[in-house]
């Protein structure tokens, strides 16, 4: 006999020993599945070959098939497992997609080719401040790329916050208004006007980001926005594919004048090449006339997203772990009931000479197939409902950052990974129960 009789083996052991053995097996299986799912590919492939090639394997398939074709008879109980797991996966994918989208929006605002200079100690542009003398010094620092007229490609910017009503709630929200320098179009090459035209320097004209246009009332070309009690005309819409799309842009001097400012918040400059950042930082931080921090925009915007994404990811994980526990209990309940309902059938198979192993494997295969279907359903619904869904929240400049949920393929796979994990636990214990049913009792009970 190629397979040991598990029944005799298991029956000989004491109950607690057996229970802890099972728990250990489940933990190891789950651990492997969540830490290194790819490592399991080879055993799974071997298992598939065994299923098709060996007699026992074909027995497994036969029993599992019988279980699957009888699902319509147990539709109520089965759909409970399906919907339960779909719910877990849906919530998981949606929450993670929110974190992913926020991070991507801020991350893509930064790169290694541009550097941002802030007053030393300031943690965001809004709390920074640089006077005119400092701005001139910074623009002339070494390592900053120059345009064909030999002007440094650097933009001294004024960042202020204005109140505009949100379309969704109708209540005032903080909108970031960025006054930019003349070289900004060469500095941020990803910015394109998609409607209207650029603002004219010296005039009270604004262009609005695509995200801001979608979120705030009055942020459309042709309308007039009041900044500090002055009328500003919106003349265009721009796209940039990053956090700047949440902003309103105007001429730095005009915006500064409107807010009675005679200084700037930050200087962003294009570098000759990424490596010069250290030379630039050294030159500026050692200049006794300046007190500034220098970093690449990638480092700056990376930091801005950290806190919120950590919170969303942390809360999301807690929520999903609790939901998954609930789903495991539901799956266990349903599978136990299914096994109990089929005890006569299983006992008959055992009486015919089927060993315990194919019975265990068949019940597990069935539950995991069900879980996989639930996972795909949940992932599909989350993708259809949330991919590209646009929301906004308070960013570190104390103003709204507009971003979209980003349902990536990796997230969908992780969702399915959760589903199969739940199916594994939910199927394992009932499967062992099914295999250890005393044949005689089961046959007699009917």
């Amino acid at each position: 006999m190629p397979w040991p009789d598990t029944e005799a083996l298991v029956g000989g052991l004491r109950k607690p020993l057996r229970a802890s053995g099972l728990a250990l097996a489940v933990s190891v299986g789950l651990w492997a599945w969540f830490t290194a799912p790819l490592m399991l590919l080879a055993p799974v492939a071997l298992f598939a070959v065994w299923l098709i090639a060996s007699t026992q394997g074909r027995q497994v398939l036969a029993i599992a098939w019988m279980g699957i074709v009888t699902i319509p008879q147990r539709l109520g109980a089965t759909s409970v497992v399906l919907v339960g797991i779909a719910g877990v996966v849906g919530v998981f994918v949606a929450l993670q997609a929110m974190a992913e989208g926020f991070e991507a929006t801020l991350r893509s605002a930064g790169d290694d080719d541009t550097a941002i200079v802030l007053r030393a100690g300031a943690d965001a542009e809004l709390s920074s401040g640089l006077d005119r003398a400092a701005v001139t010094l910074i623009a002339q620092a070494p390592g900053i790329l120059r345009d064909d007229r030999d002007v440094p490609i650097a933009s001294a910017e004024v960042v202020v916050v204005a109140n505009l009503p949100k379309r969704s709630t109708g209540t005032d929200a903080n909108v970031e208004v960025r006054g930019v320098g003349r070289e900004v179009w060469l500095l941020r090459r990803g910015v394109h006007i998609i409607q209207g035209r650029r603002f004219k320097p010296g005039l009270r004209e604004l262009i609005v980001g695509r995200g801001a246009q979608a979120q705030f009332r009055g942020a459309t070309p042709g309308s007039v926005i009041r900044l500090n009690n002055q009328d500003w005309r919106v003349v265009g819409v721009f796209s940039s594919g990053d956090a700047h799309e949440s902003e309103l842009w105007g001429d730095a001097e005009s915006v500064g004048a409107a807010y009675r400012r005679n200084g700037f918040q930050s200087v962003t400059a294009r570098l000759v090449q990424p490596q010069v950042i250290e030379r630039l930082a050294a030159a500026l931080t050692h200049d006794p006339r300046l007190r500034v921090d220098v970093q690449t925009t990638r480092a700056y915007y990376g930091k801005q997203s950290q806190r919120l994404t950590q919170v969303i990811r942390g809360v999301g994980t807690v929520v999903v772990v609790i939901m998954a526990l609930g789903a495991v209990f539901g799956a266990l309940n349903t599978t136990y009931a299914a096994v109990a309902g089929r005890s006569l059938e299983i006992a008959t198979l055992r009486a015919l000479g089927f060993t315990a192993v194919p019975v265990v494997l068949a019940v597990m295969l069935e539950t995991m197939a069900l879980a996989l279907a639930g996972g795909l359903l949940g992932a599909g619904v989350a993708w259809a409902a949330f991919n590209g869904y646009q929301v906004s929240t308070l960013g570190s400049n104390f103003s709204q950052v507009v971003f979209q949920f980003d349902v990536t393929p990796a997230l969908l796979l992780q969702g399915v990974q959760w589903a199969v994990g739940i199916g594994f636990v939910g199927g394992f214990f009932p499967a062992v129960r099914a295999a250890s049913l005393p044949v005689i009792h089961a046959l007699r009970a009917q």
Partner: protein
Amino acid sequence: MKYLPLLVAALLRRKARTLLTMLSVTAAFALFGMLDAVRVAFEAPESLIGIDRLIVASRFSIIQPLPLGYLSRIQSVAGVKAITYANWFGGVYQDPKNFFPNFAVDADTYLAMYPELVLPPAERKAFLDTRTGAIVGQALAEQFGWKVGDKIPLQATIFPRKDGSNAWTFDLVGIYGVSDPALRGLERQMLFRWDYFDEGRDPRYRPGTVGWYAVRIDDPTHASRVAGAIDRQFANSADETKTQSERDFQRSFAKQVGDIGLIVTGIMGAVFFTLLLMTGNAMSQSIRERIPELAVLKTIGFSDLAVVGLVLAESGALLVLGGVAGMALAWSTLPAVRDLSAGQLDVTMQPQSWELGLCLIFLIALAVGLPPALKAKRISIVDALAGH
């Protein structure tokens, strides 16, 4: 009472099923308890404290300060009983991760305006007598192990000192508590004196201005009239004001963070829908198995109503035991969440969450129990006993 043994027997009939169903109810309500605590925290506590306070801030944006000269002009508005002012500082203690609100206040009038901050008289006197003095809430003092007499260094992010450095040092002269446990969030603040702050800040950062005024009015029902009167005073000036009730002011912040309520409702909707299916399925299974037994009960004289009651009591017991256990679990783990997040996620379950949870338990028990209960009512004794 006489039905209790029957109820217990019904629940213990299949121990594994009862336990698993109850555990899934527990998981669902544990999640509900935690998420609802977060939702309530964001929607600002519904309390009577502060109902007579208005906040006066710049109409244009949160970053625009108001001149200190507005003080007497606001005070002269009819209906204004008291006034104080404050300025956001945004200092960092050691690491940006240790975030807590810290701001400069006019010591005497601020403590009078906020009686919910309870400070021992001696420490209050010390705060009024020490220019460099600061007070912190109990929770914050515990988190960082601060004692009265400590020097607390804050790194400025917005306001550098006159000499250009960002290092501000304060003397801790008092530790306050709150008068109502629901306001425990206020214990995570640090307050220091506005006069010390104003004198010390870099003259380019607009000395002589304040971030906002807080005003007490004589009658909360006159709030909108007084707010309008204040704003009219400064209409068409360089610094127009926007006056609103303190609660509206807080809510506008919460709204800006995002619709937490909607996210929580979405998640809980998915969870409770699944729970409904799961327990409903378990209940109907359990009744189906027991049809002959229910028929026996009817034969020996149990009325239809009694049978319906028994089934409903069974689903009620499942939901109440599991649900209350879940919420108790949430209630007892939230302090651990606070410690794990270094105080950043500090929420507690308020009575309103418990009330909402109990309502949900009742509704779900009814929704889950009613279909099998009606089925049990319709059982015909003869058919059931004959095994049809």
